[in-house]
């Protein structure tokens, strides 16, 4: 079972915060990655550039953006951030807007984060877990749902 304590620490959460638009939402996710010691500010810029270049493909399921960029020197450690927005914002995704949860993903290489991604995939495919994640009040509660 995936252990989220190192990959998604308390410092990587921002719960029920406001963002004006998708850029600000990704910036919040990037700032949490920086606060947790996973990335430098450069990675935040790279995540925004990725959306500018390739479109809002990171909005992979209704309400969720998986913000990320390529593994690079801007990634110090593999980890995630979790930003739950108080008011959903538009990313420009035809099918999956508006976004209320931004998960920031920083990977040192292409394999290190697979176990974590697998646990997240399992949680997001389960409507009951998704509902519990949306209602959870603390980082510890969210981690325990992901680990369950």
């Amino acid at each position, binding site marked *: 079972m995936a252990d989220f304590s190192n990959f998604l620490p308390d410092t990587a959460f921002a719960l029920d915060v406001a963002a004006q638009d998708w850029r600000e939402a990704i910036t919040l996710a990037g700032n949490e990655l920086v606060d947790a010691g996973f990335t430098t500010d450069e990675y935040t810029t790279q995540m925004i550039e990725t959306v500018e270049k390739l*479109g*809002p493909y990171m909005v992979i399921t209704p309400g969720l953006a998986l913000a990320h960029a*390529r593994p690079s020197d801007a990634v110090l450690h593999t980890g995630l951030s979790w930003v739950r927005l108080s008011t959903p914002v538009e990313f420009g995704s035809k099918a999956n807007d508006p976004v209320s949860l931004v998960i920031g993903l920083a*990977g040192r290489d292409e394999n290190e984060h697979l176990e974590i991604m697998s646990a997240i995939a399992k949680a997001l495919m389960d409507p009951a877990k998704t509902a519990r994640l949306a209602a959870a009040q603390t980082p510890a509660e969210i981690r325990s749902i992901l680990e369950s």
Partner: protein
Amino acid sequence: MDILCVCGMGIGTSVLLKMNVEQAAADLGMDVNVTTSDAGSAKGQANMNDLVLTSEELVSELEGTSTPIVPITNFMDIDEIKDALEDYA
């Protein structure tokens, strides 16, 4: 069946999609080999696969490949992925 999952960077959304494609194939009793790629190098790899799955926004990046490309709207919807697999099985 060889399936290529494509996302912008080849490390995030395509990895999630791969996991769900493997789950969908297992549910259907299909034998699949799933790999991932970033949009930039996907074109070259697409021709070695039977099916390419990606998001709507990236379909245009893959123009010119002869392998069928199916956009997936909701990467977490196993039923949508199953429909795509069944159409090309």
